[in-house]
């Protein structure tokens, strides 16, 4: 099996609302603003869009969005499963639709008030009991109080620490990197508010071994990305960010956030599956990546992602991080927008927009000589990843 759509499509436009804690607006209103901004960025009239891809937990139907945008006919529309795990999956599906000829211009979007309306971090405590498989799966954790995303991830983190000698300070170093980039990003919630490792260590426990500063924000806002062929993108306003490849992955004995029953729980095999597909189809390797957006809903799972993509050996991410390789002048600066801890938590889509800016050379924290950018999606769920490249 090999992905046939490598280098075929590109991200031609990016658009977002301000990222806030209380938007005072509906998510639909913000979705429309972000989509219009993405079209405006690309210089494409919105009525030319004929495909929409979003991902589960999205509450703004694409048909209503199309109506608001003045889109009359749609030939591709899909919803990718598994929330933040699908952040790059929506791009993969857009590539598939475009490569197959099902659509010409596809908007991928996310919009919500997950701070001022329903707080995402509250978890599944209010989920009613039922007999469907999706409901029954929570019975193996919720009755014991393991009900929040932070708690699901913490279980992996404890075992990772035990096996590899990583410490909560190693998690904190990821947080410090994110907040350092956020401090110089005017769009970031934590603009001009960097933290020290000491701040991290002094922040309160959420679910041990996770502290407050290991957890991403909850945000009100919207982000949209416009995908079309790399060929058509050349005729639009911006330098295209070519999608070298985009892939999804779910691995053996996969569970939603709680794949605790595998022989080992310190790796992320579904991310390894994405890495293999990306590298094979694009012909690229870890050495070709200058900067990356590593999904950071919770800092501990940044470490095994670095290992799955081959930036360091298994269990050695802590050393890679201690050596400063994720920082501004490091081997692999990550999350140059401030990540989801520093900028905003738009379920990974704002990170992909930052990847596009790194290709364009317009990031507020621009890395020099960027040829290829890796972006990953939510971990512990079935996931996805992509590589953006300079146009040839």
């Amino acid at each position, binding site marked *: 099996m090999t992905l046939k759509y490598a280098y075929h499509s590109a991200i031609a436009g990016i658009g977002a609302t301000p990222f806030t804690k209380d938007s005072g607006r509906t998510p639909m209103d913000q979705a429309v603003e972000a989509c219009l901004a993405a079209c405006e960025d690309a210089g494409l009239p919105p009525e030319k869009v004929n495909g929409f891809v979003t991902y589960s937990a999205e509450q703004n139907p694409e048909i209503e969005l199309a109506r608001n945008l003045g889109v009359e006919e749609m030939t591709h529309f899909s919803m990718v499963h598994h929330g933040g795990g699908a952040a790059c999956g929506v791009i993969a599906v857009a590539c598939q639709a475009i490569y197959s000829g099902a659509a010409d211009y596809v908007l991928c979007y996310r919009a919500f008030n997950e701070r001022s309306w329903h707080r995402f971090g509250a978890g599944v405590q209010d989920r009613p009991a039922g007999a469907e498989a999706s409901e029954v799966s929570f019975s193996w954790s919720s*009755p014991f109080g393991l009900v929040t995303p932070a708690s699901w991830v913490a279980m992996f983190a404890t075992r990772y620490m035990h096996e590899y000698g990583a410490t909560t300070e190693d998690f904190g170093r990821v947080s410090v990197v994110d907040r350092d980039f956020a401090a110089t990003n005017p769009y970031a919630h934590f603009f001009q508010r960097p933290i020290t490792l000491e701040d991290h260590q002094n922040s309160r426990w959420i679910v041990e071994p996770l502290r407050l500063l290991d957890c991403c924000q909850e945000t009100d806002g919207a982000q949209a990305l416009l995908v079309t062929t790399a060929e058509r993108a050349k005729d639009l306003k911006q330098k295209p960010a070519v999608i070298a490849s985009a892939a999804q992955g779910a691995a053996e004995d996969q569970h939603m956030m709680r794949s*605790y029953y595998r022989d080992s729980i310190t790796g992320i095999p579904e991310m390894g599956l994405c890495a293999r597909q990306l590298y094979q189809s694009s012909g690229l390797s870890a050495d070709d990546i200058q900067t990356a957006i590593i999904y950071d809903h919770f800092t501990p799972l940044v470490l095994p992602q670095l290992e799955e993509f081959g930036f360091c050996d298994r269990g050695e991410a802590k050393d890679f991080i201690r050596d400063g390789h994720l920082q501004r002048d490091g081997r692999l600066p990550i999350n140059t927008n401030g990540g989801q801890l520093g900028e905003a938590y738009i379920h990974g889509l704002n990170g992909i927009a930052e990847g596009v800016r790194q290709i364009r050379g317009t990031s507020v924290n621009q890395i020099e000589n960027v040829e290829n950018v890796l972006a990953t999606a939510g971990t512990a769920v079935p996931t996805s990843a992509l590589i953006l490249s300079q146009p040839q």
Partner: protein
Amino acid sequence: MSEVMTDEQKEAFVAKLRKEVGSTGTPSTARDPVNQPMIRHWCDAMEDANPLYTDPDAATQGPHGEIVAPPAMLNAWTMPGNIPRVNDPQDPASGVYAMLDEAGYVGVVATNSEHVYHRYLKLGDRLTGTVKLVDVTEEKQTALGIGHFVTTETEYLNQHGEHVGSMFFRILKFRPGTGRTASSDGDAAAERPPRPRPSRNQDTDFFWQGSRVGELRIQQCQNCGYLQHPPGTRCPACGSTDMGYITASGEGTLYSYVVSHHPRVPSFDYPLNIGLVELEEGVRLVTNITDCDPDQLKVGMPLRAWHMQTHEDVSLPVFRPARVPRNPSTLTFDEVSVGDELPLCPIPLTPTLIVSTAIASRDYQDVHHDRDMALKKGSEDIFMNILTSSGLSARYIGDWAGPDAVFKNLKIRLGAPNYPYDCMTMSGSVTAKREADGEDIVEVSFRGQNSRGPHVTGTVDLALPRA
């Protein structure tokens, strides 16, 4: 006599109580010599399997050369048994208890016991105890009620006049019903919503039916024997749809864990220990680790399942630290370092344990076996007697150190009562090593914690063999 006293009356009352402080009472001689049946009864009730107490062959090989009594039994030998108590007004301590009873301080709990062992008791030793009244405090407000602490010191001699041991002992005599009212925590617990109810269907009912009857059931393929959790509808190993289950032993180890602090769901107590337990059969499950402080959790620790009822028709399999088997050999002085931690040991507080140990220690106080009387005297239920707290502490330390460790003393202080259906988890660490009088002494500090807080804290000095 139980009306509220004026300050002047209180002062006069305390002066009266203290009149005999420093005086020694009439020696009291044990009705029976140290004997094997009482020792065996004690060991059975305490689950203390040290062979030096009951096995003549092992005892001959041991450091004492013959059967000895568990040292913590020191004051059991002279206990009066189940005969009506007549407080002797001529006796300094007994007289104080009588005065306090008469004044309405009828509630009684022991708070401190400090044994010193000069030599272990052997079969045939006949003890005589002489009690000195050491102190009576002013009236104090305690969690249990308003009362006075009374301190005594007892010297024990055998029939040859040998000084075999001594006991420093403190009790609280209090007025029932004058304690601090139920804490707001208690009210919250009463109004606590139930935990999230497990969703279930035909594929998973066997698991919940099992936990309802105290069985931890793990799905097993009936064709190839493959075990899996959570359950599925088809065997991932062989493809068979003939799925059954086995009943797991309940033994496991902690594979990973978290301690949840925020957000707080009202159904749970926080911080909340949640573990990923690997069963000895090889599968894992998410569960709670109970009867264990968050900082006592360690990957790899041995655990044992129990079932916690959360709804009328739902019980959850949860785990607590497993009791580590008794050490059959004895630690040497050189093997032990300051800072060494003793393995955790849970002691489920069944009514049987509380009642049988009270009787085995010849403590017939009704509050230790008669719930109606316990309630009447201001307690929530029957509760464990202090001799048992000593006995279980000694068992815990002895099971770690080994049969030949010699107790030089055993000092405990009680806190939260041990009520039935709770669990007390023992923990301890080595806090000092020294040579004294030609012996190699190791000091162990220990604690027994129940759901309300520390029940017992204490220290013990053990003489260990050099090599």
